[in-house]
């Protein structure tokens, strides 16, 4: 197996990072050779998401090792572990079907630490005789981990959420929004055309444009600004962080369209941008490595009724505005 990434690998990494084709980007599961492994060489286990596969093999450049790829249906280790795909049963099955016990002389393999969410080390040992050694969180620390005699420093065992990691997630977050955004854009133009003349095409266009921009500003606030400024923004809950960036973004938007918008319309759009920013910020909890599901649900119980009410209010003011003027 090659441990250097080709131009195609790198090009594919970029498209996958954008979000395109990420649900079907996988390699064939099984045992792979890195360098010229012997029966004494270490065995490293990971998932069959190609982005992960590439990161791991790249780090193993110059080493002799066995790479056991399990079938996680193209999902990364941590998410697959949470969905019982990178699981105790799957690890045992992979070891058995690849006949690992006939290939290596020792009885241990290195699993990514984040796989522990789905794998019970003591059950794997009972099931296939191999001892699970939890390696570092990130593939980049694998060489240092192996060199230190399978020892991980505290740093290697801790998840991080750096500015770079947060920025890398932005394109895919935006990509996922494509479909709902199309529906919102159509609805915005339709609602904006309603007026005293039943439906006005010119109003649909001018008012609709302002409403669409209000939505886009909300997306920028919730999906870009909040992730980038995450530790700098006040409050622990995510929805107020998004509401804060959303209200600022909403203000900028109504200032851009100030010549065409009335008082009520400006208020409606600012409210809408704030709701969009706040909701998207809250949804972003699913992409962070530190928010607990119980916490997210607690926040949502408090906030969803408020956001729903605010969105409805914004829509009513927006549709009613032409009848007032």
């Amino acid at each position, binding site marked *: 197996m090659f441990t250097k990434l080709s131009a195609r690998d790198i090009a594919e990494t970029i498209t996958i990072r954008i979000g395109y084709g990420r649900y079907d980007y996988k390699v064939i599961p099984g045992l792979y050779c890195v360098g010229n492994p012997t029966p004494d060489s270490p065995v490293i286990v990971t998932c069959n998401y190609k982005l992960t596969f590439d990161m791991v093999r790249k780090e193993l450049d110059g080493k002799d090792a066995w790479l056991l790829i399990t079938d996680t249906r193209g999902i990364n280790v941590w998410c697959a572990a*949470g969905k019982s795909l990178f699981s105790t049963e799957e690890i045992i099955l992979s070891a058995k079907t690849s006949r690992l016990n006939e290939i290596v002389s020792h009885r241990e393999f290195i699993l990514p630490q984040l796989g522990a969410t*789905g794998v019970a080390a003591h059950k794997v040992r009972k099931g296939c005789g191999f001892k699970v050694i939890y390696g570092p969180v990130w593939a980049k620390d694998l060489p240092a981990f192996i060199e230190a005699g399978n020892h991980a420093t505290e740093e290697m065992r*801790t998840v991080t*959420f750096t500015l770079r990691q947060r920025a890398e997630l932005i394109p895919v977050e935006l990509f996922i929004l494509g479909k709902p955004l199309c529906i919102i854009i159509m609805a915005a133009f339709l609602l904006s055309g309603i007026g005293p003349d039943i439906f006005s095409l010119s109003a649909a266009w001018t008012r609709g444009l302002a409403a669409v921009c209000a939505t886009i500003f909300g997306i920028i606030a919730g999906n870009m600004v909040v992730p980038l400024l995450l530790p700098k923004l006040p409050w622990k809950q995510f929805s107020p962080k998004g509401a804060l960036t959303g209200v600022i973004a909403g203000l900028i938007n109504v200032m851009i369209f100030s010549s065409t918008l009335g008082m009520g319309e400006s208020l409606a759009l600012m409210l809408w941008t704030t709701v969009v920013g706040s909701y998207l910020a809250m949804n972003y*909890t699913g992409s962070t490595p530190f928010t*607990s599901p119980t916490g997210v649900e607690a926040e949502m119980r408090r906030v969803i009724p408020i956001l729903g009410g605010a969105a409805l209010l914004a829509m009513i003011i927006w549709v009613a505005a032409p009848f007032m003027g």
Partner: protein
Amino acid sequence: MKDFRYLDGVATLILNKEACIGCGMCATVCPHRILEVRDKKAKIMDFDACMECGACAQNCPTDAISVTPGVGCASYIMAVWLSDLTGKKVKSTCC
């Protein structure tokens, strides 16, 4: 990760000291380093930093730790709420 804190007092993490044999697997696998072995028993050092990933409970040989793991994104939780209302199965499309 010290810059990143979420809600306090909500995590479902429970440690049963009597069942703990002090093997330290929970401390090894925790991605937020909130568990430590002190006097041959595991100890929760920073309860509110728990993100409920479930790695500690999964790897405890004596089931001394329990936690309710799950997916922490709003759209998934909304889908579950909706499915509770309509009785339809959840179509999970996240991560």
